[in-house]
């Protein structure tokens, strides 16, 4: 099934998540008016969620996002790993 969630996160920007999943996540598409430098890192984040269980924990998602941010020396502006994980969890409900 494909589910959506959209939220104006506490850091100020809007994030929309579309998740295709059954028991496991098959695809994730994230969009919004946020900034992420370098921009291509978002593709890595989306890919990193594929294969996770649909009841993946908030903490696991945060750690995955954090790791990608750190490994690319990326900067998120108007969003955070926590808010991204929150919107993904909302979509998976």
């Amino acid at each position: 099934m494909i589910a959506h969630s959209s939220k104006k996160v506490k850091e100020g920007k809007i994030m929309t998540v579309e998740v295709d999943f059954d028991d496991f996540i098959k695809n994730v598409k994230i969009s919004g008016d946020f900034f992420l430098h370098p921009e291509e890192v978002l593709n890595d984040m989306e890919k990193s969620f594929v294969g996770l269980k649909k009841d993946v924990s908030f903490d696991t998602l945060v750690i995955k996002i954090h790791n990608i941010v750190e490994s690319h020396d990326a900067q998120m502006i108007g969003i955070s790993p926590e808010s991204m994980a929150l919107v993904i969890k909302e979509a998976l409900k």
Partner: protein
Amino acid sequence: MKWRVIGLETHDAYLNMAFDEAISESLREGASLPTIRFYNWEPSAVSIGYFQGIRDEVNLEVCRELGVDCIRRWTGGGAVYHDFDGEITYSVIAPANIFPKNIIESYGLICGWLVRGLVSLGIEAEFRPVNDILVKGKKISGSAQTRRRGILLQHGTLLYGLDLKTMFNVLNVSRQKITDKMIKSAHERVTCIQMHCGAGKKEVYEALVNAFTDGKDCGAGIWSRDELIRAKELAEEKYKSSGWTYLR
């Protein structure tokens, strides 16, 4: 550091965005100088942020009816309606290492030039992080930045006039954003030069040029032949392509 200034030009959306990318490439190769440019959009256009979904943000049918172009930017941020008469857009393309590494600080630096231009017109403006400039609490300018392979590109708009009717017809304005700020009317959150001073668009442009170039070693410049060729190529092959437009 020597800078090149490209004076106010008018292009369509695709060429406007392609020029920014072409300069970034050329600067990286050492073939161009750091550049400040000012431009209009004709036809009027909607640009969306790199991460946005065009169908989420833009009423494509209305755009088609009105002859308004739609384009995905190379930079993040939100959707913007670029009215031909109602705004002046700037771009700054330079080595990233001459700006603060902290992105918000670098927004503050470049937006500070724009604030100085407004102050010189008698308009009290302030930078509001992340990327806005406000006058009396209302947004008059928004900017977006990207840094790719050592080059910083920041572009942004300054609202000269307001055509809210068209703006809200072409944009799918987020109800979340409006509800969250407890704002009932767009007039309560957006403003423009014409509401604060009687300066003509030319005078505003000149104030911006003075403020952006103040203290820099600047010279009026033109496009190189290679930049023109590359910009036209990027406009046709990238920015007009449905693959790019519908990326998200």
